[in-house]
């Protein structure tokens, strides 16, 4: 029914607006965790946080105990900055936490998460004062600075070194229901988990389903939150939900999936073929559009560490099409997020408790 579909998507859009707006660079996820825990708690049977900061929402299965567990992972950290140095005049230097293109930063507003928070912007030199040819040179991140418009003494008093800084861009509503905001990577995945828990709270799977908002995906080579969550939950299968590159001008078709085309299903060494086949079969039976993404090596998601946790865990990766990743205008279609949740819920709700990929051959 169209009306039911529309209300589902508008609710997804509302979740996206709320959850993407929460701060939280790698290591500072505590700034978002309480809100995300509250969101999980609206639908989950249990909500908990582990010692390193992951947030879990449990849906208790209907199967006989001990039941198998499915892990749904989306990372709650967002790329951002930390205050590195305060200079004469009160200008602030930052270090980036996560991979920004410094070409997307000059002139952008940020929020410095001091107590209370203080807005600022990346300073730029007006064209009137530039030397000839200066506008053709990229400004590297160590030459960028923040200006709060406040005095040096106030800045020094209020902004300790190490303070978290996030891009400050309210969600922008585009045509076609699309939404642009910093933090879609991967708060759109967190919203997918929230919506999946909501659906499963009604559909009641035989398995226990554990949604986890993980820490520190955007930092370093280890997906720390995903690794520790897998150790803790000991899941029989794990699915990472993250953003995938949407179709964009100048990008190869091979590197992208169109916005509005539904969930991206990854094939490749990070994905167990039976999980891929199962998800695809569910998409077909539910009449959901989907698209296949081919990554022979790293999927670049939490699934990398889930897969090699404990004795090995079959994994899959669900991709939400997203344009302009790692900028302040990461753009998704709420409809795609909604479809990801329906796909996950549909798949998990039908899983029999004897499902396993390990085989005893003799």
């Amino acid at each position, binding site marked *: 029914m169209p009306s039911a579909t529309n209300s589902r998507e508008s609710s997804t859009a509302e979740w996206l607006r709320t959850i993407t707006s929460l701060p939280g660079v790698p290591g500072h996820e505590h700034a978002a965790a309480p809100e995300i825990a509250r969101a999980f708690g609206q639908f989950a049977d249990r909500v908990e946080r582990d010692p390193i900061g992951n947030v879990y929402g449990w849906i208790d299965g209907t199967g006989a105990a001990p039941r198998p567990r499915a892990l749904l992972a989306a990372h709650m950290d967002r790329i951002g900055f930390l205050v590195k140095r305060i200079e004469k005049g009160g200008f602030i230097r930052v270090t980036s936490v996560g991979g920004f293109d410094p070409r997307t930063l*000059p002139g952008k507003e940020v929020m410095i998460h001091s107590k209370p928070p203080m807005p600022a912007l990346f300073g730029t030199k007006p064209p009137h004062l530039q030397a000839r040819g200066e506008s053709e040179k990229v400004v590297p991140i160590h030459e960028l600075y923040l200006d709060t418009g406040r005095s040096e003494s106030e800045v020094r008093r209020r902004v300790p070194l190490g303070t978290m800084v996030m891009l400050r861009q309210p969600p922008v509503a585009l045509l076609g229901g699309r939404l642009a905001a910093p933090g879609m990577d991967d708060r759109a995945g967190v919203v997918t988990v929230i919506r999946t828990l909501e659906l499963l709270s009604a559909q009641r799977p035989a398995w226990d389903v554990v949604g986890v908002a993980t820490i520190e995906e955007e930092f370093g080579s280890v997906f720390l939150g995903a690794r520790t969550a897998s150790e803790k939950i000991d899941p029989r299968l794990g699915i990472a939900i993250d953003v995938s590159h949407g179709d964009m001008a100048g990008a190869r078709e091979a590197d992208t999936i169109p916005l509005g085309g539904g969930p991206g299903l990854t094939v490749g060494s990070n994905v167990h073929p039976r999980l891929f086949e199962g998800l695809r079969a569910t998409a077909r039976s539910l009449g959901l559009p989907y698209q296949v993404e081919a990554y022979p090596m790293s999927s670049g998601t939490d699934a990398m560490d889930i897969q090699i946790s404990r004795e090995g865990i079959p994994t899959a990766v669900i991709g939400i099409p997203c344009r*302009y990743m790692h900028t302040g205008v990461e753009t998704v279609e709420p409809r795609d997020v909604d479809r990801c949740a329906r796909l996950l819920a549909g798949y998990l709700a039908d899983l029999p408790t004897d499902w396993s990929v390990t085989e005893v051959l003799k």
Partner: protein
Amino acid sequence: MSPTSPRRRANGAPRFREDLLEALSNESGVSGDEERVRAIVVEAVRDRVDSLEVDAMGSLVARVGPRATARGPRRGPHVMLCAHLDEVGIMITSIEKEGRLRFRRAGGIDPRIMAGQVFRIGAKGIRGVVGILPPHLTSSADEERVVPFDDLYLDIGASSREEALEHVARGDTAVFDTVYERWGETRKGKAFDDRAGCAVLASLVQQPLPLPVTAVWSVQEEVGLRGATAAARRVAPDLALVLEGTASGEAPGASDGESAPRMGGGPALTIHDRTLMADARLVDIIRRTASARRIPTQWKRPGVGGTDAGKISLSGTGVPSAVVSVACRYIHAPAAFLDARDAQRTADLVWHTLHAIRKEWER
């Protein structure tokens, strides 16, 4: 009216109308498309001025005379006060079949501030984002390359030309999607060049002025000082003062010389820029007035930029002209800064200067 009021300060000068600065900053008015900004000024001044007209190019022209007294009207030189309505922005030049919009600049914008920026397009304020490939898909050679204007595009969410055309049209202008805010003493907003001057001028005409003044809110400054060129010919003033939002120079590591003029340092006075040799007698009156009234002033960096005063000074048989500016950080960028105290001091200084001109200017 009591000596101090919401409109008037203890020294007699008009109060700076920050509410107007906020409204003007938030409204969009790229060169050639100033109508909505002009309407805000019209609303603010229509009951306070003797006449109000829109000229052939779209500039707003208000006459404010000395009020007749029992002893008869006192005359003085006819002064043109001028601030420009327009701001830098972009214009949609084509709508591609995938629904993307291409655009050109109106005015001086650094291409380095464009990627990832949000714009408000046309009268309806449709939002568009300037797309850029994610770092994951960017080659190391491209990382070193500023994306030129011709390669930039706006994404409004449309999937096709047809869908886009329901909401935007070729020729629509677009501005940075920035909201005015108070950050301590600093005010943050777009287009302070020259909505700061527009708001100071609209504040000034709230009070009876000591001289015959023609206030002009000019169009098309950012595309070649065009509106003021035509307006000055029609107004034919004896003198002109241009009110501007000018570039301040503070940055990490900048020397004192490079930093000047500073935000918060008081009205910035021009000696000369690329378009004007300011009239030395007029500048002298302004300086002495500032000194007598204890209004701090500073010098704008010489030889940089240009203002409507360049064209007004050449009008007719020549018009002695000067420029008084509010020093703003980050003009021509998505969000600029100014110190609200500088705006009030600029209103104070121009007000007292008009009185000094009445007394001193030889006819």
